[in-house]
């Protein structure tokens, strides 16, 4: 299992931040997922070995956090918030629109592997509801039309 140099640097640095190795697990998983796209069996085994945990321990943590996944996702993960503020401002309509537009449901991935869709709980952007998070980018005060533009922008990026 090979990670990038940047990951290795971050990992080595992280080990010095905590009193025990296992404390590094959550950030490490996030970095590994950013790099590999998802947390494969291979990644799990590698990280368990590095942090002196059982693979079961690592899986337990992954299954707890909805932002961590053991299955491949699309290049752009569209996360539509339908929590209270966004819901009142049209978040559910936005989700329905995305479903139709992308032709996939909650936790689905388009056949070309470009988009995944997810209905998520509060992403902390209530002041600018309705909000959508695509990978680490936020898009706020959305309407159906604005959403189309956002998606088109990513489609062009490829």
């Amino acid at each position, binding site marked *: 299992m090979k990670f990038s140099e940047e990951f290795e640097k971050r990992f080595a640095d992280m080990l010095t931040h905590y009193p025990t190795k296992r404390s590094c697990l959550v950030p490490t998983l996030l970095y590994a997922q950013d790099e590999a796209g998802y947390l494969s069996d291979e990644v799990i085994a590698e990280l368990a070995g590095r942090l002196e945990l059982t693979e079961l*321990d690592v899986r*337990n943590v992954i*299954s707890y956090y909805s932002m961590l996944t053991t299955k491949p996702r699309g290049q752009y993960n569209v996360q539509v918030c339908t929590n209270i503020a966004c819901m009142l401002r049209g978040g559910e309509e936005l989700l329905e629109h995305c479903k139709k537009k992308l032709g996939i449901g909650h936790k689905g991935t388009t056949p070309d592997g470009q988009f995944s869709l997810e209905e998520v709980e509060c992403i902390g952007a209530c002041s600018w509801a309705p909000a959508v998070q695509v990978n680490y980018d936020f898009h706020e005060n959305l309407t159906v039309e604005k959403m189309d533009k956002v998606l088109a922008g990513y489609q062009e990026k490829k």
Partner: protein
Amino acid sequence: MADVNITVDGKAVKTPAGTLLIEACKSVGIEVPSFCYYPNLSLQGACRMCLVKVEKMPKLQTACTTVVAEGMIVTTDSDEIRQARKGMVELLLGNHPLDCPVCDAGGECELQDMTFSYGAAESKYIEPKNHREEQQWSPVVFFDRPRCILCYRCVRVCNEGMDVAALGVQNRGVSSIIAPNNEDHLECEECGMCIDICPVGALTSGSYRYKTRPWEMNHVGTVCTHCGDGCKTTLGVRRADTGMEIVRGDNRDKSGINNDFLCIKGRYAFDFANHQDRLTQPLIRKNGQLTPATWEEAFELIGKKFSAIREKDGGQAIGVIGSNHTTNEENYLLQKFARVVLGSNNIDHHRTADFPAFAAALRGRANATASMRDVYNAPAVLLIGNDPTEKHPLLAWQIRSNVRLHRSRLYVVNSQPIKLRRQAAGFQLIPAGAEGAFAAFLAGEDAALASLGGSKDGWTALRDKLKTEENLVIVFGSELREGDITALVKFGSAVPGAKFLALADYANSRGAADMGLYPDLLPGYLPVAEAGKFHQEWGGIPSAPGLSLPEMAESAKAGKLKALYVVGANPIARFGIDPFVFSKSFVVVQDMFLTETAVIADVVLPAANAYEKSGSVTNTSGDLQLVKKAGEVTGTKGDFEMIVRIADAMGFDVRQLVPFGRGTRADMGQTRGAQSGEADRHAVWLEANGLELKMSPFDPMAILDEIQRLVPGYNISRLALLSGNDQQTNFAASGPAVAQKPELIVPAADGLFRSGTLGRYSHTLHSVMENKDRQPSEEVAAD
């Protein structure tokens, strides 16, 4: 720590600082309900059942995570608290299937009890319940997800108690689920602790599930008969066509040295007793075939043959082989029978540790042997050789618990990277066979370093460190023999309060050695050549040492050994003896099964096992415990009775063998009516003082009287023993033993799932082993 004063429900309670509130309440008899709290495991605070009101704290507090503080005023029962607990039960029942009528835990389920106590029979929920099909995680572990209340006890006991970490929790909130380490199955030590500790019926045992209900069984507390650790086990028995069938083994009452611990063998492998191959009638060889016969026929034949051989060729023409699984009383009786009735010192057993050398080394030292309890409490433990995780699961548990709960320092010296190294403060790998050199080095012989490998400084540092320890418990395997043990004891004498523990492999290996199943040693390791109390008590017993087990085979080959009497042993298989050497001898075998030795016998007597008789056994650390009759297979007899009957059939006065029938009557007071308690008081006093009437020659307690009177180190408190406690025997007045042949010590080479003697007849152990073999260790590519 200083004491803290608190008030619980108006009662003043004084308790050490640092005590958890739930334990403080328990200490004055106030029960605070809980699911997730379990003594000696880490705190979880998951179930919210132990909520109590603490004055000046704004909300209800969890008693299991609150530490007592000076002046705390606590209420454990009020309308508010009952309402809170009722709410918790209602939430737990939200997804619970309420299938109590078919659930194994029904009748002994903590959730059931709580529901009765707090009542949440009516639910506000109308949503469909989460359901998942039951899963089989291993041959012995089944998981019913819907019944689980997520207390995480199983996860903690597997991680912290067993250091196996085969269970975890996946997902979050209401969809949390207990998960095994290998996707859909467990890869673990199959101890079953998770099943026992489960407060509901979520984890159930493959051998017990759907078989019976708790109230349909009798529960008998006895001692496990597998390895030499002597765990207390409660056997659940119920009536069956063949007698009393054992259906369950556990130790939920936490009695005995093992608290609630049992390994796979103790928990499931009692099923050898129910094996269909059990012998249930005597067999006599007629026309070359073993043919069913009556008991009278068999005893008459044996009595006649043994008498004739004794008269014609003398006692030295008869050999006796005893067992590692029979009780102390049976072993003592057997060697007494050999020496007194047969007039022969030809008695031996399958030795698995050098107890004579150990006894000789500790002679004259009081408090020098460590009990299983000492291993749990000692501030430091040194382990040389052996792999307790595989061969002495309780010892491993005691060591792990001691390190975890008392921060004991463990030093391991082994030729393999054994699992206990993970708990060790110091682990030293040595070449195989160098254990003795290590003992010599400890005793100050620096030249032994050559065979240890590693740096001299490292070894010297270890030795110096060990010397600074106090009350060190030194545990060693059968790799150490003779002079090694003397050297080790010499080293230990420099450590203040050091105690020793020698590891032997079978349930009563220590008892067999202590009771004198040696050709040259009497009970208590007294040399047979020296005239002593046994010679006086028993009259003329031969003083020349007899034949050891291999020598008996030689003697039979030479045509000199005319008869062989084997009680609960299988020397043909164990020592690889050519069965034809005994073709001219008259061979009598007492056993449960037609073993390799039994098939060559002239008479085979069907024997009861340790779960089917009373008496006492001594575990490898010298803890004496009573065994009680739990199961029964019709058509078998205990070894004790058979030995007495053979002596009787030989025309011997059995009163000389078993001191029974002292006195003829006793006024026990009234047994009925207003004064009936008198009878009980008399009986308890008599029993406690070993004076109750022994009405029958088959009463092992009569022999226990004699053992306590004559065998050094066995004069323990009878009352404590009868109360079900373990009592430490010792070597202070033993010996002096004579030099033994260390090559006669043959370790059992058993593992956690394998025991050649009883395990081969256990379906459960077989299914677990087959399952382990079947799973490929690594995935292989399809091409």
